[in-house]
């Protein structure tokens, strides 16, 4: 049961954006997100918009998914053009899911080619796909690199079998080093995704996963605390007492352990849950979300943002395909942020980044909160003196509380 979409205003079927969205667009980065809503199995913790093959029929099958997305990209180019948004080459492209690599590499390559044809890729553009270590081969990775992909992000999650079992992950840990090696050989940068705080995961288990991941010398690493989402199979299993509940203190211990191990391995954080070996290794697509850049999200349930207007597509792949077939926007709803909401989002998102939030951009109430945050050890004093709110180690774990204090009204 994929998570619910937000409620918003209705979105017009021609996809034309309000005039506010176009303003200043030539100065903003532009990205593309492509959602691939397929998985071989549904993991018990996942609440993303994804489907196993058996769940779908009709015109939304995996086989004709790529053409459907290509149709959305063509629609997108037209809609942006009609909205007066300056056409720009793409800075980043990100294929996420689901499991994008469940589709043949050729399909992913064709979608990327369409995007390149419509907008072009900026020199040095970052093009990433998520991948399951099980669903790649040396050949498939080479094909992706040849098509223009620069980066692959593997869903490693853990190196410990009993943890992977609770997460319903099917890959065996030994598969990960192989996949990483093949990606390297294909010339792709490598990111690993880890999950901590899985029910039953001991601190040593987490430490082992970190060590295993770091031994592969990834360029980038994401470590996400497992969030038990309502309505997932894992939430039900916890409710029934079949697996133990997780607690925030355990999460905090594991986060601190991760920071320690990653720092020792020469990686540094640039966002609360993300670390990179060098500044160039930071995921620019990820940063675009936090920095409020423009991106078009293609695929069912995908979210987009252009100049203060956010919208989201219908969730079900069948409904999504039908909309596009009829030449209509697949958007289910949208919202146009007023100045207040834009400020709130700006603080909310950018405070999570290591580069921090400029105190000069805070309103007076926010600036008043800064001294208290220093006193409580939640932000770094030196950075504050330089005019930047940057979370301390402790503050990263309490980032939501910091944001609430910066937005007191």
């Amino acid at each position, binding site marked *: 049961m994929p998570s619910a979409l937000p409620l918003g205003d209705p979105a017009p079927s021609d996809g034309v954006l309000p005039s506010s969205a176009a303003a200043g667009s030539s100065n903003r980065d532009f990205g593309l*997100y492509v959602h691939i809503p397929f998985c071989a199995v549904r993991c018990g913790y996942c609440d993303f918009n994804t489907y196993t093959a058996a769940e779908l029929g009709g015109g939304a099958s995996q086989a004709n998914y790529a053409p459907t997305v290509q149709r959305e990209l063509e629609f997108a180019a037209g809609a942006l053009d009609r909205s007066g948004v300056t056409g720009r080459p793409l800075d980043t492209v990100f294929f996420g899911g689901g499991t994008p690599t469940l589709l043949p590499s050729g399909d992913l390559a064709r979608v990327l080619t369409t995007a390149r044809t419509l907008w072009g890729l900026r020199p040095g553009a970052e093009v990433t796909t998520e991948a399951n270590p099980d669903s790649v081969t040396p050949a498939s990775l080479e094909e992706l690199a040849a098509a223009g992909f620069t980066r692959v992000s593997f869903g490693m999650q853990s190196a410990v079998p009993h943890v992977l079992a609770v997460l319903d992950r099917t890959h065996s840990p030994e598969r990960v080093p192989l996949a990483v090696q093949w990606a390297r050989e294909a010339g792709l940068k490598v990111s690993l995704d880890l999950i901590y705080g899985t029910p039953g995961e001991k601190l040593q288990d987490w430490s082992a996963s970190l060590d295993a991941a770091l031994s592969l010398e990834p360029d980038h690493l994401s470590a996400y605390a497992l969030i038990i989402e309502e309505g997932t199979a894992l939430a039900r299993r916890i409710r029934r007492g079949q697996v133990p509940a997780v607690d925030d203190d355990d999460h905090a211990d594991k986060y601190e352990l991760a920071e320690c191990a990653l720092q020792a391995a020469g990686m540094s954080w640039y966002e609360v849950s993300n670390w990179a070996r060098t500044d160039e290794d930071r995921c620019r697509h990820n940063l675009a979300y936090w920095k409020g850049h423009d991106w078009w999200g293609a695929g069912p349930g995908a979210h987009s*943002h252009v100049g203060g207007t956010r919208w989201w597509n219908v969730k079900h792949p069948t409904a999504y395909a039908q909309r596009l077939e009829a030449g209509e926007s697949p958007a289910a709803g949208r919202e146009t942020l007023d100045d207040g909401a834009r400020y709130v989002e700006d603080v909310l998102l950018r405070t999570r980044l290591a580069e921090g939030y400029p105190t000069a951009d805070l309103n007076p109430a926010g600036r008043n909160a800064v001294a208290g945050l220093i006193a409580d050890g939640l932000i770094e004093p030196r950075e504050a003196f330089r005019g930047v709110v940057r979370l301390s180690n402790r503050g990263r*774990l309490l980032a939501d509380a910091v944001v*609430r204090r910066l*937005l007191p009204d």
Partner: protein
Amino acid sequence: MSPMARTAPVPAATDPAIIRNFCIIAHIDHGKSTLADRMLQLTGVVEQRDMKAQYLDRMDIERERGITIKSQAVRLPWELDGVSYALNMIDTPGHVDFTYEVSRSLAACEGAILLVDAAQGIEAQTLANLYLAMENDLTIIPVLNKIDLPAAQPEKYAAELANLIGGKPEDVLLVSGKTGVGVEALLDKIVSDLPAPVGDASAPARAMIFDSVYDTYRGVVTYVRVVDGHLSPRERIQMMSTRASHELLEIGVSSPEPTPSKGLGVGEVGYLITGVKDVRQSKVGDTVTNLAKPASSSLSGYADPKPMVFSGLYPLDGADYPVLRDALEKLMLNDAALVYEPETSAALGFGFRVGFLGLLHLEITRERLEREYNLSLISTAPNVEYEVTLEDKSVVHVTNPSEYPAGKIAEVREPMVSATILAPNEFVGTIMELCQGRRGVMGGMDYLSEDRVEIRYRLPLAEIVFDFFDMLKSRTRGYASLDWKADGDQVADLVKVDIMLQGEQVDAFSAITHRDKAYAYGVMMTGKLRELIPRQQFEVPIQAAIGARIIARENIRAIRKDVLAKCYGGDITRKRKLLEKQKEGKKRMKMVGRVEVPQEAFIAALSSDESKDKARK
């Protein structure tokens, strides 16, 4: 069988000989309002189709709780042996908090119906009111109600009543307010057994106020019983306690809707409207006389209502303070017993310290404020009034723990009550245990019947205002009933226990307790708060202290994680909504120093465990 009166006697020209003034003494739930309704119907003053169940209970809260807070008087015509009589039924409050109002209602009557549930027997409050009625020399008509119930035991309880008031069990009338059985016979008996009022028609008027009600459209409606003389429309009257004079804009009787008359004469019961807006200008127990020809002495028995229990009332939302102030002002118009003054709590903000006659009065007032004025309130733990004498002989009256003097204290006196508890004899042991635990001293014990006892205790009022009645009920499976009245004061070894969060005293949680119970209070309150207050960004010690001495301690560990890892695939809208929700939750927090305390924590910490258990069930 008596017929409905064909011609009702005319007010203002009614011979006292054909007037009968009576009230009904009954316990909550024993069916007084249903019986009264049946009388209204049988005497024809309320048509069948207009009949609302329990016509006389006007306020919603009264109807829901099945209790009568405010009394009213209704004039009923009834014919016996060819003579038309005017029966004035004076409805009395049934709860111990309103003893003074009951006593004034009784003073307006010559007789009382003692109404007892035939399935439950007499209760302590009824006994107390019966005692008041007998002190006022009222003629008592014993009646067992609800004889239609399968569980009714009329023989047993008739014997109990006969035993109590003298007379024979056969003299006890058996009625059912629900089916109407025996109600006509009761009306006949009121006429035949109760004495007619006696007074001096030519003397200056003396009328006793037994109730005073604020009406939005008419101002204060004052209910009186004329003892001597005559009151006429448009004349100027005088309130003897304050010497204030008013013009009688309207005078009349209720039957049961207000009906203006040419006045009221000796023995009559009716209402006055003078245009005053505040019930304090028309006080229960006061004597009304003619301004032109004033009486030389007022009727006896007047007393100013004295609040016994004090509690701080605070709006959950500080912005509602003006609403609360206006609401209290309005309630005061209709409740002469309500006193209040502004109060500031460091923890709860701006509110009022309100004095009540008792715990029920507090609950009803709070419920009315919340319902009629749409307020959400926090009420602090109820307090009694302590008299604290300092070593320099100065005396301080303390109704709020935060006013408790910090200096050298020579002596503290606390108010006492004498309590009467009626219960089946199997519960004597548990009741004694409870009362002893509350520092009670037993005054005596009597058997009312072979299996029901009356137990008398002298207890500190402070020990019964909080949860005593709930405890009593739960320990006796609901069978025990309680009545109490003020009974002087005593010197006691009392201390103030302060509760501190992060070293900061939280006035709302302070309590004045007996020294022997201070430790238990400290442990209980710190433990409760540890459960109720969420973890903060820093460690929060919770301490209980007497003066500088810490007697209990708990600790809330600092929260370590408050961040969501994911960005939900670019679903920023969801993240922003989450933030808004979190901030909304924060608005429901009160700041104590730097500690965020949820409103619920105040409510839960200030409610007794017993009532929390009830809420859970």
